[in-house]
């Protein structure tokens, strides 16, 4: 609570808030409402989406852009891929982050090792995509393989593989997920590591004295203590992955079965505004559960404070 002596005037707080609130109204609230509105309009936003309906074909009237966003084969592919990204990347990054946090904690060159794993956080997704495009590079002719992975394949006596343009779409997606883990594991590691270091040493010692193995100490004591932190990491990763765009845009352009929601939205920005905005609304709808979780957690924290 604010101390009594500090309560000066009823107008003052609004003066402090004015600039920030005005900017957020223009750049967050207005565009959000406008996006919902445009999602009900046609390609150019001039008429209702219903006018593009062709008699005899399925149509959802004013909501026709949502028919595209939810049922078109390109969109179902994108939705499937985003779901797979979530299924693979959330456990993948959290597990990698947890592993690194635990192992680096036990070596003397901890800081150096952590900086290396964390460094991808500093560079752009575009830069990271270039790095990995080069790792996956494929020489389909007789020349030497200049991508590390295919050079290894050849050295092992196997055929080089098109890692990003494979007829098997799962291969392309797995290649992209590896880039994602490379990018985000450092983030998970840093947060989990801070939580691990905050676990009181006495508790662990007590367990060890009682004869618990290191394995038991970790899973029975440390893990439950850091579980709330892991939940925070998971919710953050879910948001990051729902929004994933740059990696796909630069590495595959969404081709060969690697389409994702955000890339679809981007493709339609100029050519079909209504669809583009319907996809954007869909994306934000998917983030609402996380939003609710975050607000609830915030209120719990405030209640303790």
């Amino acid at each position, binding site marked *: 609570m604010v101390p009594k002596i500090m309560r000066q005037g009823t107008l003052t707080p609004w003066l*402090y808030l004015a600039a920030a609130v005005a900017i957020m109204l223009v750049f967050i609230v207005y565009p959000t409402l406008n996006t919902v509105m445009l999602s009900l309009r046609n390609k150019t936003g001039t008429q209702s989406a219903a006018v593009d309906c062709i008699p005899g074909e399925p149509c959802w009237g004013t909501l026709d852009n949502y028919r595209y966003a939810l049922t078109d084969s390109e969109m179902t592919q994108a939705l499937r891929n985003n779901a797979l990204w979530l299924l693979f990347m959330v456990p993948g990054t959290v597990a990698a982050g947890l592993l690194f946090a635990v192992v680096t904690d036990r070596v003397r060159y901890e800081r150096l090792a952590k900086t290396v794993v964390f460094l991808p956080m500093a560079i752009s997704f575009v830069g990271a995509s270039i*790095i990995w495009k080069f790792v996956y590079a494929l020489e389909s002719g007789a020349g030497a393989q200049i991508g590390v992975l295919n050079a290894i394949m050849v050295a092992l006596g196997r055929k080089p593989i098109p890692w990003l343009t494979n007829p098997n779409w799962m291969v392309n997606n797995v290649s992209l997920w590896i880039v994602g883990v490379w990018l985000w594991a450092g983030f998970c590691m840093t947060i989990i590591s801070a939580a691990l270091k905050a676990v009181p040493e006495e508790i662990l010692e007590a367990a060890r004295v009682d004869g618990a193995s290191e394995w038991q100490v970790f899973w029975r004591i440390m893990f439950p203590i850091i579980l709330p932190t892991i939940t925070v990491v998971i919710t953050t990763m879910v948001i990051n992955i729902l929004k994933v765009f740059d990696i796909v845009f630069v590495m595959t352009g969404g081709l060969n079965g690697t389409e994702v929601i955000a890339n679809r939205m981007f493709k339609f920005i100029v050519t079909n505004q209504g669809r583009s905005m319907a996809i954007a609304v869909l994306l934000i709808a998917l983030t609402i559960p996380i939003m609710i979780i975050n607000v609830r957690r915030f209120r719990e924290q405030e209640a303790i404070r």
Partner: protein
Amino acid sequence: MSTERIRNTLGRIPLHIVVIGMVALWLIPALGIFVTSFRSREAVRTSGWWTALSTPPTPGQEEYAAACASCHGADGKALAEADLLDPTIVESYTSSARLIRMLREPIDGQPHVEDPEWQALIEDTQRTREALEKLAPVSEHLGILSGLGRAVDYSLTASNWIDALVGYKGTETYQADCATGVSQSGKFKCNARDLLNPEGMARAFLNSLLVTIPSTILPILFAAFAAYAFAWLHFPGRMWMFALLVGLQIVPLQMTLVPIAQLYSRLGLSSTFVGIWLFHTGFGLPYAIYLLRNFLGGLPRDLFESIYLDGANHWTAFWKLAVPLSVPAIGSLAIFQFLWVWNDLLVAIILLPTSPVLTYQITNLIDPRGGNWHLLTAAAFLSMIVPMIVFVAFQRYFVRGLLAGAVKG
């Protein structure tokens, strides 16, 4: 050393393998593009970056030594009537198909090639395909000897970086073109002005700085005022407004771009720096306010009470107390916002298409056939230098900020 300690050390070996292996996995991909950025176009195309430090043999040298050197000499000029340094002679045999036809013709009744193994291969019409494959490097070698062809340049060079900076996309290098005067008539002036070429990374670097610096300062400034109000001022709706802010932090940016772009075209802000500054400010504010408010709210109450007892008002309390004390939080925030804006691609493409920033310029360089890795790698590294310096120098602030509000992506 006691057995106990030896066992201990040995037992830790798997641990070190895991840690070092993981560091290597994280480092090698980046090392690949760093090394590649210093290699010539031909070297990148014909060999892996991991071979950069070993000098590969000139193509065909071994084959030439085995089949030809005994008569023509190691340098190719031993026979006066067949001087392999003479381009007019070699000219006719630069393809292996023409070379083999010539080699199959006897000289003075004797087979052209003396070496029995090569002789057998060349004569055998069943194995023409194999012979052609083996002769290809020889004809390439002859080309290099006579000055017709050019050997692949395996030396390390900074020319890719220069080409990327000025936006040179020709077949030679910027420096070579300028030295021979080819570029004088074209778009390059061959002086410092070339750094301003709109297709170059130098210009994009400048654009990135022009976008990023104000986009970092503005949201922090506005957020500091708002955060102070949320932390130390009393007004109705304080709690629910802040809860709304917590939710807003994760609004996917993609949503808000099109209406803003339309608004800008009506206001004449399309493709202006002011436009992109304002957008990044708006998008950065919820997180900035959240972080700063939590930090300010955590400061001791007594401090604020005592400064008020001394007769201060909110304005002095804000500048004399709140701002100086929140320097660590402002530091974390500045790094976050800086990296976020510097690395952004989507907003820059849509709101600032005419003044490409680094990320956008790189995507312009991508060749779908993969023909310009030498340029792309240098460009990618150019874009990473600043964020990596900022990151390593202020890592502590960065981690602190991450821990304070791990919600924004």
